[in-house]
């Protein structure tokens, strides 16, 4: 498993790095509106109506944006959580924890593809 993780390290690092760069850029607008402004009533309810949300999300740019917004933060999160656990003394359990975290990010990414396709 350690060998496999080392072989996959360039790919994991690519996804992790893009999770920081692209994930951060995309999450800012999403969190501002969908996570905070809409629930607090700052944004009109029609803005996130089902028809409008479906229209925006079903465009290919919308699908790609949502895919990146979901999948890339998962990889940033998985890789950073792995290293946080190592730093806090969990190096001995890395052989178990790292595959589980990356498996979660992989499954989440696959489900993200399915989610944006079925809109």
């Amino acid at each position: 498993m350690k060998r496999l993780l080392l072989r996959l390290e360039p790919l994991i690092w690519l996804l992790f790095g893009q999770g920081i760069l692209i994930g951060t850029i995309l999450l800012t607008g999403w969190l501002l509106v969908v996570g905070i402004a809409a629930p607090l009533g700052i944004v009109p309810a029609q803005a996130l109506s089902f028809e409008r949300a479906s229209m925006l999300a079903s465009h290919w740019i919308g699908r790609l944006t949502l895919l990146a917004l979901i999948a890339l933060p998962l990889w940033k999160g998985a890789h950073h959580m792995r290293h946080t656990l190592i730093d806090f003394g969990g190096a001995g359990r890395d052989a178990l924890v790292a595959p589980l975290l990356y498996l979660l990010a992989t499954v989440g990414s696959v489900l993200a593809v399915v989610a944006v396709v079925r809109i």
Partner: protein
Amino acid sequence: MARAAHPDAMKPKRPGGTRTAPPEMPPQFPFSGRYAAYTLFDITGILYLLVGLVALRAVWALGSGEAAWREILSQFANPLYVAFHALTLISVVFVGVRFFRLFPKAQPLRIGPVKPPPQSVIMGLLYVVWIGVAGAMAAILAGGVF
């Protein structure tokens, strides 16, 4: 033809004669001095992972029909969700500011004959893209555009 080496290929079969001190975490770890920002940067991973899963749930609901979409929006109005999203937004801004400050320093001194632009220009461009994309996305989602 070269092939990938075993990761432990250079590891000695028996411990060498040279005594080495066991590795120790610095006394400042985890929350003193410069380690505070380092540790917080790592810990934001938990929020990124969770917000990715929450966003997946929202997009899945959108694909499941109007009732599911309305349900997820009503759940997002729960104060706990709003607090989570607010905390995650703070984390995202923290990660962005820290990463965009580091990014220009990690550039090569030259790429072939080409020198990269000054660090301040790279950092400025990153902020322009960040604010521009986030602003455009917020305007579109909020109904200000389209």
